[in-house]
């Protein structure tokens, strides 16, 4: 596989890393004097926050993975971008405003505040760490792949590089989930994907618009039960978005529930806009890089296309832009996740508090997925991310939806639902990536796309056990419900 213009691409990657750290470090150094204090005290506006959420959310799976899947498996894979976007619709309708009004910063906070139980809090922490790790593995693997394509370096080097950069940046405090960094990341990713796409489409037109055909038989095996797999994907992505740890913490930044809703609407627009682009790369990749269909590196399609289609200096530059965008995707999502996981580890796992503990937790938060990314076999990036969504959908979705909308939820119910729904999903994912159960056959399909059965299991377990333990409804339930569902102005006893 040819390496498309190493020097410019490497420079682009270095620039992205540098810019990210710089914006993080200096975004806040602009001091304000009292005269414009009022400007400083203004809260983060929904649109800005939405760009930040999108920046953190659009990961390697979105940037590289979708194009790769579309290239190999055709238009069926369009369910991925649809699912990744539609998750925010569910979030908007059921969760956004009440979650913000609950005042929770993380999911364990929400569980503790709603159910008044330390046990549930600890269990939710375990699942946040678990889902975060499952989500981090493909990010690191994507980075390894990108670096291999760019420089021909061995596959593990990129994994280690991104992990180290994230540890240094997060532990040093330079790249916290500061709004402006993430906003910058979103626009960088969008530009990096949009500009080359325009040139590629123009080049395709210049070629006399050859028809993209998906008729060729797929030689790479994906699923022997494609319909079931698609449903598994739909359930996981629609219901899993609301539980992603790095997305939840960003809602805290909204000043109130109404703004949280507006933020989500803006996220829908921004994320939807972004997801129009990857399928273009997938389709063009089918045309100009058909050999990727037969390898395991289909995720690289986005990076290879400019050199193939345009070539020359222009192709190199566009390739460099895409490489930079891809690294922005790894860095922003990986650091956001690492922050969230490390925060939970510091709060709920390690005994005492302090900055040093947070650094230790950061190392812990990324070391495990790094080890995982080096050991486990490479699943397509988007599929691996889908598994993290499945875990989230089976554990956090029942907890959030029932916690917000159902008075009779009890701590034992929540524990049962988390263990049976989330636990079985986590177990399925672990079995799948360990390679113990191989296709074909139903067992593999069920374990690789667990959401179809594990989400109902989670919901039912939570409901049934809660109904069986009516004596344990937390005493503060009514107060919590009032806070979740009434506008802040009413509950604070003040009308603005």
């Amino acid at each position, binding site marked *: 596989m040819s390496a498309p213009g190493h020097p410019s691409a490497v420079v682009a990657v270095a620039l992205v890393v540098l810019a990210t750290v710089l914006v993080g470090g200096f975004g*806040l150094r602009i*001091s*304000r*004097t*009292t005269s414009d*204090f*009022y400007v*400083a*005290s*203004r*809260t*983060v506006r929904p649109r800005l926050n939405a760009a930040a959420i999108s920046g953190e959310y659009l990961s390697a799976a979105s940037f590289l993975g979708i194009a790769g899947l579309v290239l190999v498996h055709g238009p069926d894979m369009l369910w991925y971008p649809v699912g990744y976007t539609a998750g925010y619709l569910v979030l908007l309708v059921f969760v956004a405003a009440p979650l913000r009004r609950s*005042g*929770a*910063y*993380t999911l364990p*906070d929400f569980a*503790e*505040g709603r159910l*008044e139980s330390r046990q549930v809090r600890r269990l939710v922490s375990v699942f946040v760490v678990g889902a975060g790790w499952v989500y981090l593995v493909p990010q690191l693997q994507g980075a390894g792949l990108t670096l291999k394509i760019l420089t021909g370096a061995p596959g593990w080097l990129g994994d280690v590089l991104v992990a180290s950069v994230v540890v240094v940046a997060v532990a040093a*405090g330079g790249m*916290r*989930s*500061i*709004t402006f960094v993430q906003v910058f990341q979103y626009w960088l990713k969008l530009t990096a994907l949009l500009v080359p796409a325009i040139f590629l489409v123009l080049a395709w037109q210049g070629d006399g618009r050859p028809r993209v055909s998906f008729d060729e038989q797929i030689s790479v095996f994906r699923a022997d039960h494609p319909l079931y797999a698609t449903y598994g994907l739909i359930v996981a992505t629609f219901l899993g978005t609301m539980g992603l740890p790095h997305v939840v913490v960003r809602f*805290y*930044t*909204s*000043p109130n529930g109404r703004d949280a809703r507006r933020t989500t609407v803006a996220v829908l627009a921004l994320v939807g806009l972004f997801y129009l682009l990857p399928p273009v790369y997938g389709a063009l990749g089918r045309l100009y890089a058909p050999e990727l269909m037969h390898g395991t590196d289909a995720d690289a399609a986005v990076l290879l296309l400019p050199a193939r289609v345009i070539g020359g200096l222009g192709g190199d530059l566009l390739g460099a832009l895409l490489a930079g965008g891809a690294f922005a995707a790894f860095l922003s999502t990986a650091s956001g996740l690492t922050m969230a996981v*490390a*925060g939970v580890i*510091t*709060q709920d796992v390690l005994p005492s*508090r302090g900055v040093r503990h*947070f650094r230790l937790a950061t190392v812990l938060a990324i070391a495990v997925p790094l080890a995982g990314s080096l050991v486990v076999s490479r699943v397509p990036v988007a599929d691996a991310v889908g598994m993290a969504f499945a875990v989230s959908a089976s554990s956090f979705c029942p907890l959030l939806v029932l916690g917000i909308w159902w008075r009779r939820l009890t701590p*034992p119910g929540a524990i*049962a*639902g988390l263990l*049976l729904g989330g636990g*079985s999903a986590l177990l399925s994912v672990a079995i799948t990536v360990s390679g113990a159960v191989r296709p074909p*056959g*139903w067992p593999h399909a*069920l374990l690789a796309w667990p959401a179809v*059965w594990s989400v109902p*299991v989670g919901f*039912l*377990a939570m409901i*049934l*056990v*809660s109904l*069986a*333990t009516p*004596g*344990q409804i937390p005493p503060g339930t009514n107060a919590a419900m009032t*806070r979740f569902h009434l506008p*802040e102005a009413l*509950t*604070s*006893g*003040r009308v603005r």
Partner: protein
Amino acid sequence: MTGAGVAVIAVVVLLLFGTGFLLGRTVRPVRTSDVGTPVEHATFETLHTASLAAPPLRAGLTEESARKAARGLRSLLGTDALCLTDRDQVLVWDGEGDHHGQDVMGHVQGLLASGRDTAFHSDCGDVDCPLRWAVAVPLTVDHRVLGTLVAYASRESAVLARAAGEVARWVCVQLELAELDRSRTQLIEAEIKALRAQISPHFIFNSLAAIASFVRTDPERARELLLEFADFTRYSFRRHGEFTTLADELHSIDQYLALVRARFGERLSVTLQVAPEVLPVSLPFLCLQPLVENAVKHGLEGAATLPRPLDPVRAQDAPIRVTISALDAGAEAEVVIEDDGTGMEPERLRQILRGEGGTSTGIGLLNVDERLRQVYGDDYGLVIETGVGAGMKITLRLPKYRAGVHGS
């Protein structure tokens, strides 16, 4: 193949539900302990029952708490019926024969006045009614009789009289604890009120004087300042809510600083660094404002004592620099308030924070420190770095979420 697969899933899912259901049903696992004699078991049983009845009583003697506690108390005494009253009415009747409820208040009138245990025959007209005799014991807190506990039995029993006395004493301890809780809350409220009162006199005189000086020269500014003043006092004197948000608190500080600037003009320079992410953080009401006030005061004192023998006029105009920053630190917000004023002898500061300051100095610091510790735990007290002539830097960390802390 497909059919078998589906069947397997169905069975697995059913099994999972069954396990979960059973898991939920057996909430209180029966502990079959392999140690202990029957007497010890009885002791454990009694202690357990008593501990179950305790939490509701910690809320004080009300109809709700009495209802929750009565069953446990009755099984503790092993009587047919048990009744709890306050000074005016029956709060709860647990057990059979609740037609006696209407006579109870008549029987315990004497007790409520004297505070001594009494026993009486129920004189029931119903021959089948097993409740023939009762013992009533007072529930006293601080020598005041709050209510009574009445235990009914089928015949006179010295054992029951003794047991009822002991149980009543135990209930009294719980009620005393409830009283203690209440007075602690009252103390905190009183402290906040004291803090509000502390803001007022000097600051109000000075602000009004400063505003008055603008009325002729710059009426527009005077009007703005008056509005700021109104807003500031409304926030500081508000009655409801123990918590607020960082955004509101900083806004109030902004108004405070505007008023101070009206007095000192360009001498006061304030630098602010606020990360927008931490503005929604909840914190105890009026936690930062006293610290900023301190910083400004220290700055003024520093300027007054600067050794400038050659040019005494300039000491009056020496700039006062105050820096306020609120930064995002993962699950916490870090607020730093810094001034370049006189600073303080660290030993003296320690005294103040121990509550041995004596004079009025530093009551704000002490109060803020205590409230932060009380709400967030001892890890979250103020961290103060200072030295004589070296200014003062106060750092406080605020968790983004803490159960029960909701800014309003």
